[in-house]
């Protein structure tokens, strides 16, 4: 059994036929569409590396079937900014050295985008709670928290 999936990824529409229902959204993005910015870590919803936005809300791409994304709008890390024009959150990650090996970074950024939209992020405790579903094995989180704190402050200034 295969199905058709019509999905808008980073504002580009894709109509893909022959999709097996058991194909995960993470594998669909990486292998079918070639968007390898979405990283695959644990593949059971613990590490957060594969987090993408689905209709504006962060989701684990490894806990979503590709066929479930039919008709939705997906944003991956490739949709945030370009190397020349990073978005606000990406800029703050660079400023605060919020990444080392970079493996968790796409998930951190996508989670950060959703956090900035939904929560005031007035305290570090709130930022740390918000990031609790994303694992980083390099940074000790300090600089990731600093980057998001700074992005939240910039968002408040421009609000």
């Amino acid at each position, binding site marked *: *059994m295969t*199905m058709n999936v019509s999905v808008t990824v980073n504002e580009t529409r894709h109509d893909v036929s022959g999709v*097996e*229902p*058991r*194909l*995960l959204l993470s*594998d669909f993005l990486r292998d079918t569409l070639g968007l390898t910015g979405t990283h695959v870590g644990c*593949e*059971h*919803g613990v590490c*957060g590396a594969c*987090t993408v936005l*689905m209709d504006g*809300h*962060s*989701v*684990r791409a*490894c*806990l*979503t*079937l590709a*066929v*479930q994304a039919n008709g939705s709008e997906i944003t991956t890390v490739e949709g945030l900014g370009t190397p020349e024009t990073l978005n606000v959150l990406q800029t703050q990650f660079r400023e605060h050295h919020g990444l080392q090996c970079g493996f968790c970074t796409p998930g951190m950024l996508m*989670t950060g985008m*959703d*956090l900035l939209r*939904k929560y005031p992020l007035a305290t570090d405790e709130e930022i*740390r*709670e*918000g990031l*609790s*579903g*994303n694992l980083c094995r390099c940074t000790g989180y300090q600089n990731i928290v600093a980057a998001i704190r700074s992005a939240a402050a910039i968002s408040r200034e421009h609000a």
Partner: protein
Amino acid sequence: MKPARFEYFAPTTLDAAVQALAAANGEGKLLAGGQSLLPLLNFRMARPAVLVDLNGIRELSFIELRGDSVLIGALTRHREIEHSPLIAARLPVMSAAMRHVAHLAIRNRGTIGGSLSHADPAAELPMLAMFYGASLMVQGPAGRRAIAAKEFFVDALTNCLGPDDIVVEIEFPILQHDGWAFEEVARRFGDFALASIAISIRRGLSGIEDARVAVMGVADTPLRLEAVEKQICEGKVDGRTPERFSEWVTSSVTPNSDLHASAEYRKHLLGQLAKRAMGTALALKG
């Protein structure tokens, strides 16, 4: 591919979902938010022949006030409950507990019907169902029936549903109380609880008139502590009330030791959380 092969149905009505599940002859699984089922599929620990995806059934997603209860559709996402003004006003303990439910991306996708059906003994929604004395409306091929939360949770990760049953909505009676608290400790914020307590009270002229207490992480299912509720209402209220409450709570549970915490530690933790929760609940009423 990670999961084993399955037939996939995505009905848009509840009736079609009931039919598809029944047609699977016990080999079918319901897919709601997928935040517990997908890991099982990815590990191939679950290999259902048929997956019935409920996400297209709009009629299962709602939060509404009906009489003295709040009704929540089974497909309502944790995020929607967390940010609902109606829940904040009428079910404040639930509102406070929701930020402890897993992590942001999981709350965006996970559903109340899915969490209750999964019946994890250390998950917030099953505990809240026990706490509020919720009633689960279930639909199968023979029609609808209501199941009380205390009947629904049979054991760890085990509910009383038949293979063809679908949880459609959950009724939470509103407590006419004036003090409440929710406390939880997990190894990492958003993880399953090591210990947690929910309390709600109504103060009268001579003490506490009505009380509700539920705990989790300390048994194979979440527990409502009705004997403790009685003790609260019989005793006087003074500076030592939180301490006495803590003793009543800890002496009524017998947790198990596991990888995450010893029985003694869980009991100690629950006692500390109980003391804090009673202090908060009493302070809410000036």
